[in-house]
């Protein structure tokens, strides 16, 4: 056990101080904000909170959030799998550059992620006049929300897959190819089973971010109630109208989504760990 190393010999005062400080920090930074959301939502009891979630605009926001995630997550899952396969199973010039470019959206402000699509498709954007002529709506409509969300969640799946597939190498795939398996079969029967937990965990994080994204969608949304308002945007509108119980009630739903994501991720890690343990 690694904990039985020198750290186990740490003076008791050091161990106790570190653990106490760490727990205190976690309570202040992570638990209190979470508790504040639920407390504020239930300030006047369950009824107003539940009413705020079931109200028509809130339901439209939930539907829109689900729709946007249902499109963007599969797009990035497919792109991420293709990228991970290309980058880890082959050598070609520019591989490292490609990895850097895939991770680029992580270092771009969400507001800029929305801005770039306004520059392209907005009324005064490069393609704006052409889109108007053909009556195609992208900005202030669902396609804009989807594009901004895809941009922001772009690297999640690729990023979880690439290090794992790099580590696993190519031997198994090459063996399958020597035995005459085709590319799709190799992927489905050899690669996929090896990376399925990591893939799921990447999809999970991608989905949490897609449903919770605020800055990028706020720029392209136009905030039309019932039409282009996702859940996080609905929270902001309610808050700015001083409807605090409603704002925190919808925020609680989003917080639950975050907690569920964490729980599922922890479970996946246990499953993946157990599988590796079995193999060893």
């Amino acid at each position: 056990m690694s904990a039985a190393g020198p750290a186990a010999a740490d003076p008791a005062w050091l161990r106790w101080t570190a653990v106490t400080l760490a727990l205190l920090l976690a309570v202040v930074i992570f638990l209190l904000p979470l508790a504040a959301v639920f407390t504020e939502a239930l300030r006047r009891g369950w009824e107003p909170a539940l009413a705020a979630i079931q109200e028509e605009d809130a339901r439209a926001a939930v539907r829109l959030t689900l729709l946007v995630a249902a499109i963007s997550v599969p797009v990035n899952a497919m792109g991420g799998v293709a990228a991970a396969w290309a980058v880890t199973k082959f050598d070609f010039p520019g591989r490292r550059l490609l990895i850097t470019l895939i991770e680029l959206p992580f270092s771009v402000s969400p507001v800029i992620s929305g801005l770039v699509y306004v520059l392209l498709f907005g009324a005064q954007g490069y393609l704006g006049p052409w889109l108007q002529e053909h009556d195609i709506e992208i900005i202030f409509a669902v396609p804009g929300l989807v594009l901004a969300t895809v941009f922001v969640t772009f690297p999640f799946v690729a990023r979880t897959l690439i290090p794992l597939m790099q580590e696993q190498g190519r031997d198994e795939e090459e063996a399958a190819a020597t035995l005459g398996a085709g590319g799709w079969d190799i992927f489905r029967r050899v690669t996929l089973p090896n990376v399925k937990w990591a893939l799921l965990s990447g999809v999970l994080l991608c989905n949490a971010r897609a449903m919770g994204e605020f800055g990028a969608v706020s720029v392209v949304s136009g905030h039309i109630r019932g039409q282009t308002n996702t859940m996080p945007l609905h929270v902001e509108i309610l808050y700015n109208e001083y409807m605090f119980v409603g704002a925190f009630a919808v925020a609680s739903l989003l917080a639950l989504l975050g907690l569920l994501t964490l729980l599922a991720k922890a479970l996946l890690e246990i499953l993946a760990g157990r599988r590796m343990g079995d193999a060893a």
Partner: protein
Amino acid sequence: MSAGASLTPGAPSLALRRRRHALPGLGVSLGLTLAWLGLIVLIPLAALAIKPWELGPSGLLEVLSEPRVLASLRLSFGAALLAALVSVPLGLLLAWTVTRYRFPGRRLLDALVDLPFALPTAVAGLALTALFAPNGWLGAPLAAAFGWQVAFKPAGVVVALVFVALPFVVRSVEPVLRDLPLDAEEAAATLGATRLQTIRRVVLPALLPATITGFGLGFARAVGEYGSVIFIAGNMPMVSEIAPLLIVVKLEQFNYAAAAGIGLAMLLLSFAILLALNLWQRRLRRGRA
């Protein structure tokens, strides 16, 4: 363009592939990747790089030297650097405790560190505002004890950014700490070093490259952060207005070029900082090898 190339791989590349290894699918996967990357990321970012120049170099300079723009850039970069800096000791403490000690609640603590990754930013913003508002659970005691006001002040921006940046430091340091060979620590102890000396002289230097990585990731995320900041910041022009918010303001005035100009400046500045961190890290690695 890339998709077409992938569907009809040329004969030379096919021969090359067969010679080096037998794996199929380079064309399809690379083609998909390039199409995905190009359409979603590269072409839109190219628009960001081109648009500001519609103002001409002098017009762009004029926008960027507006006092309100300068103040917002100073706040965004200053607060993000400060938040990443604060996250370093806090993150090291969390990573150390979670990897080196066994205590009840360890797994929960480990899982909680990811909360800022999973919690939507608007929710985090709302929560921190409620917490640090003058009548909030933390805001009230802080005001009573020290007369500090956090919410609706620049300090609120830093608090929100620490929340955002902290997990990056923990998650960068943790794997290195777990894989650190214990021999060096044992050797130091055998040679008579106290435990604290060992930690300071042996463990911390070994963690420095990973800490820089975490600092850089946390900073990059914090500098562009929007959702968790705008609720707690108060958004007073010249005082507590962050640069991303100013981009939104310019967009609402339909001043696309100015918005793009501020965005481009932000991106270039943060890439310069990340590059500097990267070079520092490389020098550290070379020094040790």
